[in-house]
């Protein structure tokens, strides 16, 4: 049942602590609350903060619905994080907050202090699963969602995971996902934001990637009215890799921002980023990215591609890619970026084959997203998402 909490502006320890939770977690939440109080309001250049005003946000306790799409692969632990803090206290305590600290922003701190929803996924050492795990988070109307997901892959573990935020709840959603890949782990991760059209979403999704571990990440963001996602891949381990793709669709009235950060920390790390955006109507999408190659990172390979297609003259997309290199031993660093309308030459070619203009535009846009959508591991979900995008363009 939803528990009414006081307005966020006047939050106190008595409001955020849960008496039945272990002492270490109460202390942890208290740190979150102190960080929340201490943080200034952030300065978000391209996200309208009034959309996330604390004055309007009413905490409503556990409001989420959490659905496991299919049977969890054998040996994998999947349960609500609120249960895992009791059942697997040592594991949760070891990793909670290790990727997204309450220090990063006022919104991350708010999440740390007040989360009620979210899941814990744990893959033991050397367990290789192929069956995709599909977790869906929803929430009711009139609610504020504070969800926290913790995914841990032990040494040599393999997992295919879809995390999906879906439905017409809200309007406020604040979700943190921490993805921990211990040495040699492989995570095929699809993170989907397909919220209903009225949701204001703040997300922090961070992957810490150990030695010779690999994350294949597909981010698909098509829902919500406002989105502010700070995503991060930390290639901490030597030989760690990320293959990171994203598809964003922003149509009428939507303002969707993604701020992906990529940090090369270990030696011989490799990253490929391919971010694709389609804007339509009065949709507005922002790519505010940063690649940072730290001093100790040598023999680094990094490549960023970002492309935006504009389907109407009022639609807008901003791209602010950044690159900061603190080492002089980069093997390869590349960047390519395009932005514009559907190519006239492609349209002419397709129409010259008897394909109508509308169908041609449709095929070009779906083709643009194809490599990203192709990553969705469940065929039915892939078809659903493809159809949903197709209907929008």
């Amino acid at each position, binding site marked *: 049942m939803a528990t009414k909490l006081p307005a966020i502006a006047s939050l106190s320890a008595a409001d955020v602590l849960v008496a039945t939770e272990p002492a270490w977690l109460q202390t942890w939440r208290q740190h979150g609350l102190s960080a929340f109080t201490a943080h200034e309001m952030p300065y978000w250049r391209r996200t309208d903060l009034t959309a996330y005003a604390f004055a309007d946000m009413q905490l409503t306790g556990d409001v989420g619905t959490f659905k496991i799409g299919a049977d969890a692969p054998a040996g994998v632990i999947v349960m609500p994080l609120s249960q895992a803090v009791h059942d697997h206290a040592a594991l949760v305590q070891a990793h909670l907050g290790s990727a997204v600290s309450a220090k990063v922003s006022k919104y991350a701190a708010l999440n740390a202090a007040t989360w009620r929803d979210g899941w814990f996924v744990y893959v033991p050492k050397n367990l290789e699963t192929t069956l995709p795990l599909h977790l869906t988070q929803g929430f009711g109307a009139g609610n504020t969602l504070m969800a926290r997901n913790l995914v841990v892959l032990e040494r040599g573990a393999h997992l295919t995971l879809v995390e999906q935020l879906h439905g017409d709840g809200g309007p406020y959603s604040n979700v943190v996902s921490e993805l921990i890949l211990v040495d040699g782990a492989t995570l095929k991760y699809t993170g989907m934001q397909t919220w209903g059209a009225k949701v204001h979403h703040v997300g922090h999704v961070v992957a810490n990637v150990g030695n010779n571990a690999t994350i294949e990440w597909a981010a698909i963001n098509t829902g919500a009215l406002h989105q502010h996602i700070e995503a991060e891949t930390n290639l901490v381990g030597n030989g760690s890799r990320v293959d990171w793709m994203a598809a964003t669709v922003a149509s009428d009235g939507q303002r969707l921002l993604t701020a992906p950060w990529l940090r090369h920390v270990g030696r011989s790390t490799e990253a490929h980023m391919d971010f694709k955006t389609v804007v339509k109507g009065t949709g507005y999408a922002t790519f505010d990215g940063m690649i940072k190659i730290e001093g100790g990172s040598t023999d680094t390979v990094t490549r960023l591609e970002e492309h935006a297609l504009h389907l109407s003259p009022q639609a807008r997309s901003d791209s602010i890619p950044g690159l900061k290199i603190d080492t002089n031993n980069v093997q390869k660093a590349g960047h390519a970026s395009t932005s514009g309308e559907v*190519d*006239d*030459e*492609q*349209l*002419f*070619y*397709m*129409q*010259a*084959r*008897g*394909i*109508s*203009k509308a*169908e041609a535009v449709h*095929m*070009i846009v*779906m*083709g*643009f*997203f*194809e*490599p990203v959508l192709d990553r969705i591991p469940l065929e039915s979900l892939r078809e659903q998402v493809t159809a949903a995008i197709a209907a929008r363009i």
Partner: protein
Amino acid sequence: MSSELVIKDLHASIGDKEILKGVNLTVKPGTIHAIMGPNGSGKSTLSNTIMGHPSYTVTSGEVWYKGQNILELDVDQRAKLGLFLAFQYPVSIPGVTVANFLRAAVNGHRAVEGKDPRETQIPMAQFRKDIREKMAALGVDEAFARRYLNDGFSGGEKKRIEILQMSMLKPSMAIMDETDSGLDIDALKVVSQGVNTLVQANADMGVLVITHYQRLLNYIKPNVVSVMMEGRIVREGGPELALTLEERGYDFIREEVFGNGN
């Protein structure tokens, strides 16, 4: 209904620059009609203008096909009328496979306004059979069906895929725009054979072959040869005209048409 392609006093520009300066030409059904001309004479502009490329503006003139002034039609309507342009530089469409593209093209041709597409679409089994047969005939590896259209294809591969599209769509009037450019002799033979097979199967098919060199015409034998210069058709003759041009170059015609010192 006549299936001649009739071009009447066609003027077309790109930006402020007039390229076609009054083209008159008739391509009869069942004939292979070559247009030869030096670089910059307007050959590619002519083929693109017939098909309706958005960069070219028609300032005056008409192009009639099957009882319609096709300049009034959208590009896809021209294709559905039976016109096909084999591109000099085929465009790549990343994310769209050759098979999906071809199926959309075939279904585009079969679509009837006001009718549910599900009624007119080609059955999947028939499409698969067709594409397999045509790929085999053109020596195109079946794996190409799953590759993104023209994405990373070599020049020769692109041209083969153009002919594959043509053989799937079975146009009644095909325009081959510099199909020989960038082809080695083996690819040229395969591509030409593909065109000839189509022509043999359809006695009424017209083909307009646009080329700079006579070489292609050794493999696709024309009935009529027209020479284009400075945006006009300046000569028309039989196959022997192509051989004369090969031997003597374009200068002698230039002198005859425009006089000495031009």
